[in-house]
């Protein structure tokens, strides 16, 4: 922790609020590992039509992201999809 961080230390009330916001998103989404796996497989199928992707390295998760509405944050589905090979269009 840097010197300046000491002064920027968040109040524990804010820490609690931030932690809860994240926690409730995953609670509410109620995405069991099964459902997440299905979503993952579907994404692989769709993307694979257009390019070759690394199915093993694919990572998806539900978190939150900044937005102009709704107090600045909204839930979001993040997917990190490594591409192995960009197929040339028309092939």
């Amino acid at each position, binding site marked *: 922790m840097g010197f300046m961080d000491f002064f920027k230390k968040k*109040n*524990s*009330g*804010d820490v*609690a*609020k931030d*932690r*809860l*916001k994240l*926690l*409730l998103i995953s*609670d*509410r989404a109620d995405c069991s590992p099964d459902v997440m796996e299905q979503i993952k497989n579907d994404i692989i199928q769709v993307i694979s039509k257009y390019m070759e992707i690394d199915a093993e390295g694919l990572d998806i998760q539900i978190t939150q992201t900044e937005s102009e509405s709704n*107090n600045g944050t909204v839930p979001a589905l993040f997917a990190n999809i490594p591409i192995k090979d960009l197929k040339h269009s028309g092939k």
Partner: protein
Amino acid sequence: MSEVIVITSGKGGVGKTTTTANVGAGLAQLNKKVVLIDTDIGLRNLDVVMGLENRIVYNLVDVVEGNCRIKQALIKDKKYPNLCLLPSAQTRDKSSVNPEQMKKLVDELREEYDYILLDCPAGIEQGFQNAIAAADRALVVTTPEVSAIRDADRIIGLLEANEINKTHLLVNRLRMDMVKRGDMMSIEDVHEILAIDLIGAVPDDEQIVISTNQGEPLVGSDSLAGQAYMNICHRLLGEEVPLLDLENKNGVWSKFVGLFKKN
């Protein structure tokens, strides 16, 4: 028309029973006919909080099983003749009653009472299912802590799934000194996170402990918690009451008054 309100929280120890006792006594003070039902079979407590533990003859399970009539099991409050308690059974378990039986029982009580308050057990199992089966509205009690709020959120989801759409949030055990310091989530924080109608907030007040020791609800007294509960009762009746200023306890004037009010 009578209304059935379930007081629930998910997490234990956040003040469901205290809230049931005080809201019940408050509504009775406002001249409503009120019956409180303790649905926590096996771990009954509403009777001691109300100070009626020595008057129990029959209980909820006796009524459901037909060992007695409802009237025989109802205990009249010491102070308010229009307030009654249907105690729970202490030596049985949650499976002694099912949601249908609960509905039937409550429907019978609807004919005679304006408000039927159901004190729900902690958890989301059978006891919870029994308690919410007959409810028109729900009062979700939480404290400004991550664990209680998380459980409250889960409960709100389950209430929606069970088509109880009138849900009200009660933030209990608020410590304004900590909120001011930023070390406790504020009423607004909790309200924002759970996003249901806020019916009121009750401060963490020593008087609650004292009143529970004595077995007398403190609603309507001039303690901060007593006023907060009374305001909640008025809001339940549909009146618009501004949120109580929970900080006035620390004001110079109240301290001054407090000096003369000790006991």
